[in-house]
């Protein structure tokens, strides 16, 4: 892993309801990590367009991406957080309709794969939302998903730190 450590990217739009989940989870993670000793991972907010993501991944070895997922419970399981190893294959088909970013994360992953621009480790944490209308603020279900999403990220970061030690 690069000496700079992992880059954690939260993507979303604050005026599209639960689409802001990626940004809110990132903010919650920032607060959780604030008092920890040692180097903190780099955290970055992005709107989530494919070309912006490709540019952000450039030169990175390890990237974790947090994005909202508009999927029924039956499709993504009981957990509101879905860990997807994007290096292993295309994002699941239902992810194509996940958010409002146009040419977005799913396309960025596949473009990156075609252009050999994917980081050596690229993990997506898809957090289930339920309401993507034009408004500010998260639904109750999305708010409840923040804590398990942060826990999943902390677990991933701890595992990465252990592997690097």
């Amino acid at each position, binding site marked *: 892993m690069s000496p700079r450590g992992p880059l954690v990217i939260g993507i979303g739009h604050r005026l599209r309801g639960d689409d802001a989940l990626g940004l809110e989870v990132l903010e919650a993670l920032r607060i959780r990590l604030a008092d920890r000793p040692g180097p903190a991972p780099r955290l970055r907010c992005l709107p989530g367009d494919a070309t*912006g993501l490709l540019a952000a991944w450039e030169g990175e070895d390890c990237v974790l991406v947090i994005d909202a997922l508009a999927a029924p419970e039956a499709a993504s399981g009981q957990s509101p957080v879905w860990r997807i190893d994007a290096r292993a294959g295309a994002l699941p088909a239902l992810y194509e309709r*996940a958010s409002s*970013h146009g040419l977005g994360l799913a396309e960025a992953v596949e473009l990156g794969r075609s252009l050999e621009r994917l980081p050596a480790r690229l993990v997506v944490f898809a957090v289930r939302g339920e309401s993507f209308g034009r408004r500010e603020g998260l639904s109750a279900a999305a708010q409840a998903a923040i804590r398990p999403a942060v826990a999943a990220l902390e677990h991933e970061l701890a595992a990465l730190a252990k592997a690097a030690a």
Partner: protein
Amino acid sequence: MTPTEDGTRTIQVDTLARVEGEGALYLRIEQGQLADLAFRIFEPPRFFEAFLRGRHMGEAPDITARICGICPVAYQMSAVHAIEQACGVALGPELRALRRLLYCGEWIESHGLHVYMLHAPDFLGYAGAVEMARDHRGLVELGLKLKKAGNDIVTLLGGREIHPINVRLGGFYRIPETARFAELCEQLKWAREAAETTVRTVADFDFPDFEQDYEFVALSHPDEYPMNEGRIVSSRGLDIDVTQWPDWFEEEHVERSNALHCRRRDGGHYMVGPLARYALNHARLGERARAAAAAAGLEPVCRNPFRSIIVRAVEMVEACDEAIRILEDFTPPEQPFVEVPARAGTGHAATEAPRGLLYHRYVIDDEGLIQEAQIVPPTSQNQGQIEDDLRAFVAPRLALDDDTLQWQCEQSIRNYDPCISCATHFLRLDVERT
């Protein structure tokens, strides 16, 4: 699909965007004839018009930047110009040049995205950029690098590449360090050559033989290819100040759609965007852009919407050229902004977004609170014309199977680079048989 026994088939595309309900295309074909066609999209600006009411005018640039991830600068520019007009403030040449430079960046990134990632796959026979990248890696790499040159201008001036935060009423919060200008200038010289290559590349695509007698509407400025300022002119003789937009154009509610369609008050639909800008301002293009257009066989007026991809490439040459000129001639302003004291009144502005004329109107009270906002995006203005194009284009192609017909309808829509165009690669087609 096979038509029903009574010869009727209905093609309904429910999802034109990735969030359901954003847009739809509906076709009904009876006895081999087109009986009905409706194209509708959801328009985010309607939400933002309400969102702006009661906010302080100083918040408008940051709020309007969030309307679109691809063209936030356009929304910011129309907003600041309109509010400054209401408050009776004009900027000096240095700040004006910086705003134009910022707009150049947005044109390069937006056109780069559309030409390479969204439109080129149509002509090369791919479902989208991902599939195209597998066979045309060099083309996609070039497009990404070209787009990045535009992003870097926006990042330098706007503070970040998407939803810029450095734009304010009266100018900018801070002026970028000129130390970075030389490096950016070199990058843009590469980008200008890449844009010229792009013109040659896309001019070789096969284009359907399809022309329409459009009324083109765009800004026109006596000294420059229009971006931030100018009068509103049309190919049928209209020549008005931007404050007169409401006197000559109207938005009408169309049945089956929550969107507003624009039309001339005394006429029909019209086209805004690169074809209109180019046709009405060809003489103001710089030497290199004009030479690139001529070498590509592009006449000063182009009425084939499929060839708009060439015009966008020519406009990228122009934007790179203009950005280089501004960087090389740059004189820092004394202050990053001029004060804009609140004054009750109404302000209008129109600027040229990459997709075409973007009109804003604000009513402000004496404390600077926004009482009313009207935002008319280019896609809304083009919506009626898109339907007209679809009718004319589809009519002789009704015998095509549904997949091919849908593909061709998508292409026809993408000619306009509507804000939903990036999503139209993911159309879902429902067929009703009656």
